[in-house]
């Protein structure tokens, strides 16, 4: 259950980053709502996940999912580069997150 919360927390973080990008382009109330709401949800879920997971592991995986998600959003929504070094980093992050899940 803690791992599901952690993955959801990472997804909310990505939504928060999308909100941030929207604020840069258009300062609408809905953009602020998206950013603050998503980050609040993300912190709440991270805190729940930490109830049973070590905080170093939970924090690292949370950051990792947020970073991978933001990079993927950048590639698919904003036309950022899909070069192999970026893909390799994404694979390393996902593999280490899965490894952490397996040993916990």
């Amino acid at each position, binding site marked *: 259950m803690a791992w599901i919360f952690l993955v959801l927390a990472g997804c909310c973080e990505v939504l928060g980053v999308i909100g941030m990008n929207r604020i840069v382009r258009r300062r609408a109330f809905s953009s602020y709502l998206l950013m603050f709401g998503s980050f609040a949800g993300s*912190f709440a879920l*991270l*805190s729940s996940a*930490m*109830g049973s997971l*070590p*905080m*170093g*592991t*939970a*924090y*690292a*995986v949370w*950051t*990792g999912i947020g*970073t*991978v998600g933001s*990079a993927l959003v*950048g590639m698919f929504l904003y036309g*950022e*580069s899909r*070069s192999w*070094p*970026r893909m*390799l*980093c*994404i*694979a*390393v*992050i996902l*593999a*280490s*997150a899965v*490894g*952490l899940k397996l*040993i*916990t």
Partner: protein
Amino acid sequence: MNRNWLYVLIGGLVEVVWVSGLKHASSWWEWLGTLLAIAASFYLIIEASKRLPVGTVYAVFTGLGTAGTVLAEMIFFHEPFAPLKVLLIALLLCGVMGLKLITDRQEEAEH
């Protein structure tokens, strides 16, 4: 040291405070401190990113936050040292920092 890098350094340390708070806070004033620490670390990083390359700022900041969190949990909260866990966290951190640094380089090349 450049003032903006000082912001990144302090932001990374404050990050460890709120991560610890999210796991260990129990009273209302500890939760208040955690919320203030979240706001402070975000503020410092956003300020630093205005004048420094965003990906590099984020890479250093995450590095400090991740390393600090793992150390804090062993030093202050008596979590046992598990070599494989620390190794995987370090590997994950390399991926995050690499991704952020590459993104900066590519943006520079485009501009």
